[in-house]
């Protein structure tokens, strides 16, 4: 166990968090990040905003870094910005956001509006959300990266959509990240996109690791197999996350939660023993058999 200095100065005991390098730079990223889809869209509810800040405190205190959002996610960006301000703008945060507007001319204004909501000097990663207007946005993002206004560029999709275009862009564009849906049941990306990411040196972010909670609700009707303790899983959430992040091509998964207990549990998936290829096959087969 190591003692980490959490955001806000609180000392938190946490096991060493496993990281993977971003292929384009070698920068280490913890295997588990924090998504904000639905969970952080709480509007102007003061109580809920404070709760989100506590989730962020617990996430960063447990060694997490990547927080991911989008202009599409309602008030999530503003809630993250307020949370970061409450926590004293922790330097460890890896700020990942998206551009989500159909016309290229509106991209820079949206990016700047997003940056102000986050209250950060610049984003670490900007992604073209669901490939919307990628032809116009990718040149903008790459120019921002060249001007050191941005560190990484990426593209996203979800739930298996537009994978052919994703593949084509992974082959043709100098992107650093690709974000796709990947979990114990949605494994289509294993066929082409994950091998291509390894071949091209592109980091992979897995979204919807729990199918928006539906996968966990289903799994929790069954007992966790005893052999899950061989890879230090304390529950189905860690079982599901360890399966995802142990894929050699995966860089990190970004589960979203509004619960401090759950974010700590999620971060636990980035610690301890990780499944090897044989164990991953066993995990997938077990879940398919339920």
């Amino acid at each position, binding site marked *: 166990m190591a003692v980490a200095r959490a955001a806000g100065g609180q000392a938190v005991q946490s096991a060493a968090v496993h990281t993977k390098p971003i292929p384009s730079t070698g920068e280490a990223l913890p295997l588990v990040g924090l998504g904000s889809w*639905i*969970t952080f*869209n*709480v*509007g*102007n*509810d003061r109580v*809920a905003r404070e709760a989100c800040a506590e989730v962020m405190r617990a996430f960063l205190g447990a060694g997490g870094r990547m927080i991911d959002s989008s202009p*599409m*996610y*309602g*008030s999530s960006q503003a809630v993250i910005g307020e949370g970061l301000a409450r926590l004293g703008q922790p330097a460890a945060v890896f700020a990942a956001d998206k551009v989500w507007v159909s016309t290229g001319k509106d991209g820079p204004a949206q990016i700047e509006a997003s940056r102000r909501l986050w209250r950060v000097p610049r984003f670490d990663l900007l992604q073209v959300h669901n490939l919307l207007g990628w032809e116009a946005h990718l040149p903008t993002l790459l120019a921002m990266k060249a001007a050191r206004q941005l560190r990484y560029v990426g593209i996203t999709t979800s*739930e*298996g*959509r*537009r994978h052919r275009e994703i593949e084509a862009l992974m082959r043709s564009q100098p992107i650093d990240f690709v974000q796709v849906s990947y979990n114990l049941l949605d494994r289509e990306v294993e066929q082409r996109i994950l091998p291509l990411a390894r071949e091209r040196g592109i980091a992979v972010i897995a979204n919807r690791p729990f199918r*928006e909670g539906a996968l966990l609700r289903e799994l929790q009707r069954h007992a966790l197999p005893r052999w899950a303790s061989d890879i230090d899983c304390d529950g189905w959430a860690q079982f599901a996350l360890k399966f995802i992040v142990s894929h050699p091509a995966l860089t990190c998964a970004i589960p979203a939660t*509004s619960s401090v207990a759950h974010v700590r549990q999620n971060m636990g998936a980035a610690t301890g023993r990780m499944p090897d290829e044989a164990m991953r096959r066993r995990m997938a087969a077990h879940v398919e058999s339920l």
Partner: protein
Amino acid sequence: MSEWWTYRPSDFLLFSARTYWRLFELYNADLWPWQGVALVLGIGLLAATTLRGGERVVRVAFIGLAGCWLWVAWAYHLERYASINWAATWLAAAFALQGLVLLVQAGVGRRRVRERTDLARTVGVALTAYAVLAQPVLGRLVDRPWSQAEVFGLAPDPTVLATLGLLLATEASTAADRAARVLAHLAWPLPLLWCALSGATLWTLQTPHAGVLPLAGLLALGVAWRTRRAATTGPRPRRS
């Protein structure tokens, strides 16, 4: 939107059920005790349709209802709902437009409450009664606190249902009053669309009473269709 057929309603849902109902809780807390005024207004609307009000009473009812739509457009959609749903800005515009349509209806169209024996009036009164008296209680039946109640005139769902009720329960004062009939037709689409939209939202949020609004909309549409058909075809001449 490419591959549109792969999208589900849940793909467009930006918030959790907890956040959605907290929105009503905070809204109600901000407005307290104006819920009482809204209830009185709703009971007045119910009385107007139950007691067979004349043109003047119906006109006042439409003006009051128009005010409710304009209020919901601004106070609910624009000021609150837009904080968790970026599409609410468009919803606010739609609700404001509906408020204006009802205002014009009140100013130009001459309408009266239908005959007591008319099915459309019975269903209209029932929908209005449900919107004003039953809808606020609905949340309690599924274990939501009173503080999250949806109140007629302040929340969209009961306001929309009461509007369908008033449209059903009233008719053009004279068959030749083309303006009243055309305006009445213009007043139907938005409430019906809201029934579908709100139903889809609540269904996606796994709310037990998600089907109430779509079913009420279908019922209102069916009764309106039947009433119109009966009016246009008239009684069939007997064969000699």
